[in-house]
Each structure stands twice: as structure tokens, then as C-alpha cells.
């Protein structure tokens, strides 16, 4: 009997979760859903492919400007975020910052920011300062600052600190941080910042559906007007560009890792 206890518990959890999600409380609700997938999903995929293909290639002329806006939003936000992220990561590191008050305050700030997704922030900015590229840039910047700060804090806390502790003996804290800690952490931090840029790139493509500029607003517009051939053209360009940039960035990260 003990053998089946685990499976029973597993099935019961799935049963309750499915019940909450679908409001169907019959005991075999999950199998009903799987049957539903089997019946409808593949037909849906066929229908979906029929909708988006063939893409309307004449529409590509209008895609370029919003696409450039999206890319700009992604990397401008990372450029703005880097200095703030470095300062906050130093403040939030247990090893560098010995002051308990500022340490816990910055950590609280990071976890508060982490609990607000980028799109929620973007929609709040759209409500305050209006539709456009700037609300998107602000939201992406906030995300990039705190995400990069959190990752760099982890890197600092697991780094080799002998050089830094030696530096503390001969100079003051500021120069020791710049001269010794910087050297230990630099390449990992650079790779983190590239990763942040990748995440922001993906967010910036779709952030326009809440009205924050970029190509997302074009996608939303075309879906609202049922112009699915145009959407197919947009998606073609977007995925080509994202795949290209990710390929180059992965090469760049390899170069950084070997330095």
C-alpha cells in the first residue's frame, strides 16, 4: 500500500489544481482535458498555421522602424542600467557592505522590484506618462537594474576575496573595490549584463501590447484588425533578428569566458 501513496498524492494534487483551473470537479477531469487536447489542439495548430501563412511580404516596409525602436529600447535600457546596477550590487553584497541597515534596505528593494513583472511596470508607466517608447524604456531599465544587481551580488558573494582583503590593508575601501574586486568579477559581470540584454530584447519585442512602444503595438494592432498575414510577416522578421542577435551574443559570451 505504501508504494501507491505517492502516486495517489500526486494524482490528488493534479486533480485539485485542474479543478481550480477549469472549474470541473469530476474525478477524472485531467483526462477530460487531455482528451480535449487530443481532439482540438492539432486541428487548432493547423488552423493557426493556415491563418499566418502565407505572410504578407509587402507589409515588411512598415515593420523596420518599430523593430529598430524595439532593439533601441532593449539596449539603451541596459546602457542606462549598468552604473546603477554596479552601485546597488555593491550595496547589497554581504561581504562589501558591513552596514546592516543599507544592506537590508537594498535587498528589500531588489525583492520588491523582482515581484513586479516588466509588463506590469510598463502598464503603470503608460498610465502615468502616456503611450510611447519612453514608458517602455523606463520599465526595461528598472528591470535591468535590479536583475543585474541581484546576479552581480551573487557573483561577488561567491568570488575569491583574498585580493580584495589584501587591498583593504593597503588602501581605502573605494580604491580597493575598484582595483581588486573589479578585476575578479569583471568577466562574469559582463556575461551577466549580456544575459540581461537578451532578456530585455525578448521583453521589448512584446512590451508594446500594453502600449509601451516598439513592434508589440504593431502586432496587437494587426491581431485586433484580424490581419493575420501581416502578423506572419512581422513574426518572420522578429524571429530572424532575435535568432541572429542571440547567435552573436553567445559567440561573444564564449569569447568573454575564455579571456
Amino acid at each position, binding site marked *: 500500500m505504501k508504494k501507491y501513496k505517492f502516486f495517489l498524492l500526486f494524482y490528488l494534487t493534479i486533480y485539485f489544481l485542474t479543478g481550480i483551473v477549469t472549474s470541473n470537479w469530476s474525478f477524472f477531469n485531467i483526462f477530460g482535458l487531455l482528451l480535449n487536447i487530443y481532439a482540438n489542439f492539432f486541428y487548432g495548430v493547423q488552423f493557426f498555421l493556415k491563418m499566418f501563412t502565407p505572410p504578407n511580404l509587402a507589409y515588411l516596409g512598415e515593420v523596420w522602424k518599430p523593430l529598430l525602436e524595439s532593439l533601441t529600447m532593449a539596449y539603451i535600457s541596459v546602457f542606462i542600467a549598468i552604473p546603477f546596477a554596479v552601485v546597488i550590487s555593491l550595496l547589497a553584497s554581504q561581504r562589501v557592505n558591513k552596514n546592516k541597515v543599507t544592506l537590508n534596505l537594498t535587498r528589500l528593494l531588489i525583492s520588491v522590484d523582482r*515581484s513586479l513583472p516588466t509588463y506590469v511596470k510598463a502598464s503603470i508607466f503608460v498610465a502615468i506618462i502616456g503611450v510611447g517608447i519612453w514608458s517602455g524604456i523606463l520599465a526595461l531599465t528598472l528591470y535591468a537594474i535590479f536583475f543585474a544587481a541581484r546576479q552581480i551580488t551573487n557573483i561577488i558573494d561567491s568570488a575569491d576575496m583574498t585580493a580584495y582583503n589584501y587591498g583593504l590593508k593597503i588602501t581605502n575601501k573605494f580604491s580597493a573595490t575598484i582595483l581588486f574586486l573589479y578585476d575578479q568579477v569583471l568577466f562574469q559581470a559582463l556575461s551577466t549584463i549580456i544575459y540581461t540584454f537578451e532578456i530585455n530584447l525578448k521583453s521589448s519585442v512584446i512590451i508594446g501590447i500594453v502600449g509601451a512602444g516598439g513592434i508589440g503595438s504593431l502586432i496587437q494592432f494587426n491581431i485586433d484588425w484580424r490581419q493575420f498575414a501581416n502578423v506572419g510577416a512581422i513574426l518572420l522578421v522578429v524571429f530572424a533578428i532575435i535568432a541572429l542577435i542571440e547567435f552573436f551574443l553567445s559567440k561573444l559570451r564564449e569569447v568573454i569566458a575564455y579571456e
Partner: protein
Amino acid sequence: MSNKLRMLLIVIALTIIFLLGIGIISTEQIPPLNSVAFDKLMYGLKNPDFSIYLEGNRYIIETIAIALLGTIFSMIIALPIALKSSYKINKNYKRWNYISPLIRIFPDLLIGIFIVSIVGPGSWAGVLTIAIVSCGTSIKFFKEIINKNDNQSFTYAKQITKSSFLGNYLVVIGLNINEILANALTRLESNLRIAVIIGFVGAGGVGNVLLHSIQTYDFETAFALIYVLMILFIILDYVAAHIRKKLR
């Protein structure tokens, strides 16, 4: 010398891209602050209106359920694919390696739009979306975990299970159950964040109400939702860190 030259070239390219970006942005003026909305925001920040929870709806519970169910499904999908794409188990691993980068190219909300247009709006669309989005990252990490095992354990597995796929599956799960569970917890954290926003495109959860209340300047309701979500995330962060420490 060549290293320095390469770094110099990278820096020059970055500055050129930066200047191009400034050129694009400078055509867009910085919009003025909407002071009415800002006042409402500050009022809502101080006085959240929790009466939305008394109306018998269950946005938060639904969001948590979507995230949990999506995580379970993504685990069930991701483990076999990760086994197939590990070079220690499968000889033809290369064709399976294309799956996870292909999924990870798509942004999460875009997959949400696709799934909603396939299966229709509702919480079930959110579950499928999270299962697919989370699958992309899970495969990558599981592959690394599986490849970390030494060859000895796989030869034993072959002897015991006559190299059947299910046998390998169970042996690998049994060997790495702690790391897989720790990974699932990390996935759960990020999946909960996706489950909050997935409602923006009509795929269930709290997102739809949240977006509507922000767009209509009803910040008292919006911050009532956001504060509860914040507490939820902070508790989850703490609990997950504690459990992960115990698993290692």
C-alpha cells in the same frame, strides 16, 4: 595585442550602436507627466482597496494553480526530451538539441498570444503556455544535470534495465532527484511571474483584472492586487531558498 584590438573593436561597435539608438530616440519627445493619473497612483499606493477579494472571486488562487500545474506539465514534457538530447544516453542526440533554443527564442507573452488563438481564452491556455515556455529552460538545465553523471551509472542502468528508455528514465530521475526538485522550484518561481502577466492576453489568472484596473486609473484595486502578489513572491522566495538549502 590582438586581444586588445578585439576589445577596442567591440567598444567602437558598441558606441556606434549607442549613437544610432540616440538618433532614433531623439525623434521621440519625452512626454509630460500626467499629473491626474500620478495623484491617483500616489493615493492608491497609500490606500489600497481590498474589497475586490470579498466578491467571491479567486484570481490569486487561480494564478497559483496555473503556475503549479504548468510546472508539473513542463517537468513531464521536459525530462524525456532532456534524456533524448543527452549525448551519454542517445547516439542521435544532435537533432534533439534544436528544441530548447527554438522555444527560448519566443518571448513568453507571444507564446501566450499563439496559444490563446489556438485553444481560446481561459485558464487552460495559461497552463499550456507556461508548460511550453518553462519547457525550453528546463530541458537545458536537465541536460546539464544528466550529463554531469559519470558513465558508470549509465552502464549499470543498461545492465539492470536492458537499456530500455523507461529504465534509463527512472534511473536518471532516481540519481538526480534532489537537483531536479531544486530546479523545479526555481522554475516555479519564474512561472508564477509569468502566470501573473499571462492574463494580459486573456489566458486566465490575475493579469486581466490587473491590466484593466491600471488602464482605468483604478489604482486602489491595482495596488490591492499588487501588494498581495508581492507578499506571495517574498514568502515564496524565502521558502524556496530554505528548501533548496535542505535539498543540497
